[in-house]
């Protein structure tokens, strides 16, 4: 089962290279939209941890969906891959040393397109926290403990 929050506690961890050095962290994100979406419908924005920003096009943020890893730019151009609403995306962020033990405020800004709604509802800007589209907040956040 999944947690009601968009950012899942289960799956929040540092990631390591072959020598055991922490090279970043990852967490799982679920969609609260009532339908799954084509990857190109995802409007992926920045990840923010304790105020530090990891921009979508920085090369440091990838989304893993269906076992495949995509940059936000690759998802925007994708044709035919799908993100089911019952599955999570793993958001992976490169950060040398990873995150320290203790509490972290983790946030990601993102949204989706819905073509059956008025086009103005698809406005998305990840520079600040705001409502993006019907039933979607552009910011998902959660305070979680890193072990």
């Amino acid at each position, binding site marked *: 089962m*999944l947690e*009601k929050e968009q950012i899942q506690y289960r799956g929040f961890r540092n990631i390591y290279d072959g020598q055991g050095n922490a090279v970043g962290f990852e967490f799982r994100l679920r969609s609260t939209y*009532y339908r799954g979406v084509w990857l190109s419908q995802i409007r992926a924005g920045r990840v923010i941890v304790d105020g530090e920003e990891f921009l979508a096009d920085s090369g440091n943020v990838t989304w893993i969906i269906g076992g495949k890893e995509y940059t936000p730019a690759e998802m925007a151009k994708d044709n035919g891959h799908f993100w089911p609403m019952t599955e999570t995306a793993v958001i992976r962020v490169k950060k040398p040393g990873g995150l320290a033990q203790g509490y972290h405020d983790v946030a990601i800004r993102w949204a989706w*397109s819905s073509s059956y709604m008025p*086009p103005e509802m698809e406005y998305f800007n990840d520079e600040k926290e705001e409502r993006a589209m019907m039933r979607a907040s552009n910011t998902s956040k959660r305070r979680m403990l890193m072990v």
Partner: protein
Amino acid sequence: MSYVPPKGPKRGVSIYSYSDLFSIGLTLEDCFREMQDMGAHGVEILANSHIDGYPELTDEFLEKWHTLCEKYEIVPAEYGHWIDGRMWADRMLTVDEAVAYLEKDFKIAHALGFHCLRTKQTVINGVLDPVENWRDIIDAATPAAEKYDVVMLPEIHQPTILEQKMVDDFCEYIDKTNSKVFGLNIDFSVFSPQPGRQGVRYSKPEGLIPYLPYVKCCHAKFTSMVPSDDEYMFREEWIPYPEILKVLQDNNWDGWMVAEYEGKNRDDEAHLSEMLHQHQILMKNCLGY
């Protein structure tokens, strides 16, 4: 299929009502079980939400689907799907691309036993007008729709009401082409005077009569149930169910009304079940079955 539905307006449920729970682990079988409890035999699923493995149709899901329909006496009523015209941020889906996506859905819907499809078109403005070339898309998808024996139904939903040019345009297209693969889905929100939601224009139940030949399925929308001392036991706070269902019955309309709960606390299991049960009692008391 073991369960044979009667003629006339019939009670069903859209799995959309369960969205907030389905996405965190409620199963199709959980939903079907409750539908059988309530004698709501028709189901609407949303392709992009409720089919494991979508956009592919796996043998495992096909088998599960038929097994569950048989076990819980569920009949495929409507298959919800979308033309995602703004799938890409920088350009619109072409007619050919739209038809390719539609055909994929027709094939899956047919294999699962659906005839009615609630086909969401791409809209271009705040009053939900469809893309200007919607006729080209429907024309181009018609041979495939005929092949798979499906009918595409745009959903008429607030802020659109029945007395709107878009609805007449759809009917005119059907008359002109004599199309058997295009019709209407009426969402009962069109009868709702609920203020502050999406405007206060609304249709009267009698307004439905001239459109009934085009209506193949209805969304029995509800947002708020209230107790009632009369024979109905419950009422929808805003939508005149007894009057709407009387119009459907008196005019010998035959089809499914799938329940769509769009009220508060949809992620609260107990509340959701209570709302679904109250709403089915209301419809049952209106219909007499």
